[in-house]
C-alpha cells in the first residue's frame, strides 16, 4: 500500500481533485493515511493539491482530453454548427447552397401547420410520458422492494423490454394493437367488451396515447431499476424509526420514501423529458406520424422533410432542427436551474 501511495505521481493530483473542498478532503485523507503509514507527509504533494490549477500539467491534460475533444468536435459540435449554418440556406446536393436569410424560419413559424402539430404532439409526449414512465417504474420498484412473490422473476421480466430494440417493440405493439387479431382487442372481445375493440393506432383520437403507452412499457423497467437501487440505498434507521412510530405504509411512502427519492426521481424525469423531446424511433416504426399527423413529432417531421419529400434541400429541415435544438436546450437549462435551486434550499 505504501508503494501504491507513492506510485501516484503528484502531478496527477490536480486531475483527481476539484476545487478547495476536494483539496481539503484529500488533505484529510493524507493525514489519516499518515497515521496508518500509507502516505508520507510529503510537503510537495500537499503543496500541489493546495496549489491547484496554477501548476496544472497541460500536457497531461491534453493527452487525456484530446481524443474525447476531437470526437466531440467532429460528431457533435460540427453537425450542430453546420445545422445552424444550413438553416439560413437552401442546400442543394454536392455543396451547392443559396443564402436565404430568415426565410426558412419565417415559413416555419407562419406557414407550416404541420410543424405546430408536431410541436404540440411532442410536448404532450414530453410532459405525459416521463410521468408515466417514472411513475410506473417507481410502482414496480416498490413492489420488488416489498418483496412481492416471484420478485426475482418479475425483476427480470419487467426489465426485459429495456433490452429490446425499438424496432422489435414497435412491431410487437403493432401486433398487440391490431384490430382483427391483436391481443388488446381479443381480450376485450373475450371479456364481452367487443364494442370497445378499436383501431388503436389507426384513430387520431387514440394513436398518440397508444404510442405513449407502448413507450412507457419499454422504459418502465429502466426507471424501476434506478428507483430500486435508490430504495435500497435509503437509510434503514429512518424507515425503522417510522415503523416504531406506527407510521402506516402509505404515509411512509408519501412522507418518507418519496421525499427521500426526490433527487433520483427528478433526475429520471429530466432524462425522460429530454428523451421524449427527441422521440422518433417508435413513432416512425408504428405510425410514421399518422394518421392525420396525430402522432407526428418534431423529429419525424425533420426526417420526412429531409428524406421523404421530393427534395434534396436540407435547409428547411435544418431550420426545424435548429429551432427545436434551442427549445430543448432552453428546457434543459431551465430544469437544471430549477433542480439546483431546490437542492440548495434543502441543504
Amino acid at each position, binding site marked *: 500500500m505504501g508503494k501504491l501511495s507513492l506510485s501516484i505521481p503528484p502531478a496527477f493530483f490536480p486531475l483527481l481533485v476539484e476545487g478547495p473542498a476536494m483539496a481539503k478532503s484529500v488533505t484529510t485523507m493524507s493525514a489519516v493515511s499518515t497515521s496508518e503509514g500509507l502516505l508520507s507527509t510529503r510537503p510537495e504533494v500537499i503543496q500541489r493539491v493546495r496549489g491547484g490549477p496554477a501548476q496544472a500539467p497541460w500536457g497531461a491534460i491534453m493527452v487525456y482530453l484530446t481524443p474525447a475533444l476531437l470526437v466531440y468536435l467532429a460528431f457533435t459540435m460540427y453537425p450542430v454548427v453546420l445545422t445552424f449554418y444550413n438553416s439560413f440556406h437552401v442546400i442543394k446536393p454536392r455543396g451547392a447552397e443559396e443564402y436565404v436569410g430568415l426565410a426558412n424560419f419565417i415559413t416555419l413559424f407562419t406557414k407550416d401547420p404541420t410543424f405546430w402539430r408536431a410541436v404540440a404532439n411532442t410536448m404532450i409526449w414530453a410532459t405525459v410520458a416521463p410521468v408515466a414512465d417514472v411513475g410506473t417504474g417507481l410502482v414496480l420498484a416498490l413492489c420488488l422492494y416489498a418483496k412481492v412473490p416471484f420478485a426475482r422473476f418479475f425483476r427480470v421480466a419487467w426489465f426485459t423490454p429495456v433490452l429490446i430494440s425499438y424496432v422489435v417493440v414497435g412491431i410487437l405493439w*403493432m401486433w398487440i*394493437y*391490431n*384490430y*382483427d387479431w391483436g391481443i388488446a382487442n381479443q381480450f376485450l372481445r373475450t371479456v364481452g367488451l367487443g364494442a370497445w375493440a378499436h383501431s388503436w393506432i389507426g384513430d387520431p383520437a387514440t394513436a398518440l396515447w397508444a404510442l405513449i403507452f407502448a413507450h412507457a412499457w419499454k422504459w418502465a423497467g429502466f426507471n424501476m431499476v434506478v428507483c430500486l437501487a435508490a430504495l435500497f440505498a435509503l437509510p434503514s434507521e429512518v424507515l425503522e424509526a417510522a415503523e416504531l412510530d406506527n407510521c402506516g405504509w402509505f404515509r411512509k411512502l408519501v412522507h418518507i420514501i418519496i421525499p427521500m427519492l426526490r433527487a433520483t426521481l427528478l433526475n429520471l424525469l429530466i432524462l425522460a423529458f429530454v428523451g421524449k423531446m427527441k422521440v422518433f424511433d417508435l413513432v416512425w416504426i408504428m405510425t410514421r406520424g399518422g*394518421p*392525420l399527423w396525430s402522432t407526428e413529432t418534431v423529429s419525424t417531421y425533420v426526417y420526412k422533410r429531409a428524406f*421523404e*419529400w*421530393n427534395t434534396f434541400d436540407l435547409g428547411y429541415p435544418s431550420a426545424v432542427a435548429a429551432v427545436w435544438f434551442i427549445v430543448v436546450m432552453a428546457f434543459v437549462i431551465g430544469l437544471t436551474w430549477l433542480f439546483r435551486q431546490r437542492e440548495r434550499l434543502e441543504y
Partner: protein
Amino acid sequence: MYHIKRVIRRWSSVGVLIIGLALGWMSSATAETTLTLWSHEADEAAKVAWAETAAKKFEQANPGVKVKMTWYQKEALNAALKAALRAGQGPDILYMEPDQTEYIDNGFLLPLNDLINWNNVEPWAREAWTHNGKVYGLAKEAYTIELYYNKDWMKKLGVTLPPNGQVSQAEFLQIVKKAAAAGMTPIAQGVGDRPFPGAYLTHEAVLKKLGRADYGKLLDGKLSWKDPRIVEVFTWVKQLVDAGAYPKSFATLKLGESHYYFHTKPGALMFPMGAFYSGRAFVPPDKGGQPENFPLGVMNFAAMDGGACNQCKSLLAGGSFSINAYSKNQKLAGALLSEMATPEMGTLWVSTIFLQTGIKSDPSKVTGKYAAYFRELAAMNKGAEYFIGSPRNLLKGQCAETYVQVVNTAFPGGLLPVDKALDMVNQACYKP
C-alpha cells in the same frame, strides 16, 4: 558483422518478394471492374432473378466486369441513396421511379438517350421518363391500377359482372353493402407502410369522372378540388366507406399483409391494387403467395355517373433503373441496361414475374397456369385509355404530404367527412 549483413540481405529479399506479390495482387484486382447496382425489391425473388439473369449475360459479354447487386426495401434504399449521393458516393446503377424527379432536378441521373436501343422500349415507358427531351430511366416495371376480386365469393353473393367487368357506381355500392351484410370484408386495403393504396379507389373514380385532361389539371394544381364533380366522387366514396368497405385495420395493414388478407386470411371480396399484384401473389403459398387454385378475377373500377372517361385508367411506369451521373463506369452501366432492354428480357419479365413491363415483350409466350390471368387482364384493358402517372407520381411537397394523409389514409379510413377532406387537399394543392 558478416552475419548481420546476411540477415539484412535475407530479410530484404523477403520484403521485396512480399511487395512484389502485393503489387501483383493489386494489379490483378484492379483489372476487374465492379459495376454496382442498388435496387428495391429485396423480397421479390422473381425480380431479383430477372436482374441476375441480365447481369450474368452482361458479365459473359464483358469479361473482367462484375456486377454487384445490393437489394433493399424501398424506404431503406431511398434513405441510403439520398445520403450517398449527397456525399458524392452511390452506385453506378440505381433503382428509381418516375416520381423521383428530384434526382433529375439535382443532376444525379445520366440521360440515357444514346445508351439504350429505345426501339426495344414501349413509347409510353420512354415518355414517362422524358424530361426536357432527355430520358432518364428504363422502366422495367409497368402497371395499371386494377381491381382484383374473388370469383367464388362474388358468385356466392349472387353478383354477375358484365363482360367488360365494369358496373355502375350504384351497383358497386350495392356489391359492397351485400358483402358487408354477408360478413365478408368488401375491399382489402391497407396503408400501414405505403402512401398510395388507400387512394386507388378514389383517384380512379376521379379520373373517370373528369377525363384525362381535367384530371391532369387537377394534379397540376390548376383545378379546384372543390369542383362539383370531385365532390360527387368523394361523396360516393364516403358512402362506400360508411358501408364498411374497408377493413377496420385499414390504417395499419401493410401492403404485403393486405395481399395476404385478400387471398388467404381472412379473405376479402375485392382488392384494388397495381398490376404488380402478381409479383407477390404468384409465388408459392409458403412464401406469401395466393393459395393454389385461388379464384382470382379481374374487373374494372366502377363507371361514374356522367363520367367523362369511364374507360380511363391509370398506367404507371414503376420500378426502373437509372445511371448515376457521377458514375465512373457510365458506358458499362449503359451496356448493362441495354442487356436488360431486349425483347427477350421483356418476355422473360412478363413470363416469370407476370407483370407488365416498359420493355417490348411478347405476352403470348406466357404459358402455364397464369396464362389465363394474362388473358383476363388483357380483356379488362381492351379499349382502355391510359393516364400516365398517378397523384403519387405527380404531386409534390406539402400537397403530396396532405394528399397522402387525407386521401390515402384518413378519408378512406372514415376519419374525415367529405367537405373537410376536400378543404384540406384543396388548401394544400390548388394553386390557380
